């Protein structure tokens, strides 16, 4: 299933936000429904990463790659990293997939792989 991870663009000043917030952090415009939804680009650079070894039971893997990626439009996101031996600054491309199985729901988010 194709899902998107979205940024939120202020209708007053154009500032992009990810994740969602109710008030623009740049102009503090305070009208309701003042953001336009804008899908995030998929390509970016890996800023930092880790492999977590002690995971909650929902994650049925021995170690989980996680990272922060700066996308092409300058927005940064946290996501899972499915790369054997990543390096800082490498080019990556994200795909939106199931990242966590909760009791009632599958959660979708970015999984990054080498570009």
């Amino acid at each position, binding site marked *: 299933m194709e899902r998107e991870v979205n940024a939120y663009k202020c209708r007053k000043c154009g500032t992009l936000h*990810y994740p969602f917030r109710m008030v623009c952090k740049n102009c503090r415009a305070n009208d309701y429904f003042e953001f336009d939804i804008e899908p995030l680009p998929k390509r970016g650079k890996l800023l930092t990463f880790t492999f977590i*070894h*002690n995971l*909650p039971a929902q994650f049925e893997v021995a170690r989980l790659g996680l990272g922060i990626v700066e996308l092409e439009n300058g927005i940064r996101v946290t996501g899972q990293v499915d790369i054997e031996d990543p390096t800082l600054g490498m080019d990556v491309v994200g795909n939106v997939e199931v990242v966590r199985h909760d009791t009632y729901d599958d959660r979708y988010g970015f999984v990054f792989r080498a570009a």
Partner: protein
Amino acid sequence: MRDVYIIGIGITTFTRLEYPLSEIAAYASMGALKDAGVTDVDYVLVANMGSARINNQSALASAVVDTLSLTPAGAVRIENGPASGASAIKEGFMAVASGMHDTVLVVGAERMREVNNLEATDFVATLTHPMAEYIYGVTLPGHAAMFTRLYMEKYGVTERHLAMVGVKNQNNAMLNKDAHLHQKITMDGILDSPEAFTNNPWVAEPIRFFDCCPVSDGGAALILASKEVAEASGKPMIRITGIGQATDTLAVHERPEPTDLMAVRIAAQRAYEMAGITAADIDVAELHDAFTILEIAESEEVGFFEKGTGHLALERGETAIDGKMPINPSGGLKGKGHPVGATGVAQVHEIVVQLRGDAGERQVKDARTGLACNFGGFGNNVVVSTYARED
């Protein structure tokens, strides 16, 4: 504002405790009440992060005040993540400074060992951004690891520096009877010998087991009082000279400079400004070393060392008990333990012990002023406070 003093302190051993959370809080409180020589208070603040989820008990303050037979004093639970403890001290400070109350009990307590380590880690991870971080499996060790990697890249911090923080703090904890870890560790055992990485496996690369604080149960308590009450108590006059708090973005990835801990820096500036002092005036500090990198980074952000040089000061021994800027003589979270809601109160407990000159083998010589940094979230909610002995 009125001046506010700390006239009583109490603490439990930090370890796995087999009695109810409200009794952990009450035990620490009884120590503080006895130390202050009072049997009654006007107001009770209970710092705790997880009672409703981990211990299946909500409205913890009502249970604590009743267990202590302090009813009908007002009582409130303060939940502010890992900064709950110092946040409660700040509320207690304001209650006395405003003139509304004369004597306030501030107690922090947590009982985390009621669940297993993975559940405890997952519980603490619920403080991250629910949609942008938590769903991915981000944990606090994960945040610390990503931060550590950037710090290594930018400033030349190595695994050796991280291990040095762990060795220093666990060895300080050997001198603290209430500390969780009484296990002497060496650079050889956790870094240099062939079996080191068997002893010290990855938790979240590049941080290892001995870079992380233990999961602890425990409680710590303080009695805050007006000057009049403090003078009548006959206890050493230890004044809360400054308290600063600051916040930062919930999602760590949104910060413009990911190696900055802006909230630590601003909270410290606010505390110094209130106290009318600078970092150079501090004799002893307790910093929030839930992960070894945090002691290094916080020591810079509170102004003890230039940004990017904390690990060099550590190498020179400046942060040892007999160094120029002693940090975490109690053992810190790393050695003393980290019962989350108790931690911010326990840090100030140690500062008071040091300023009273009661720290025995871990006493910082001639300590007259102290600082505590209680770090909530991954740096998104931080309280820094300063103390001075006045008599």
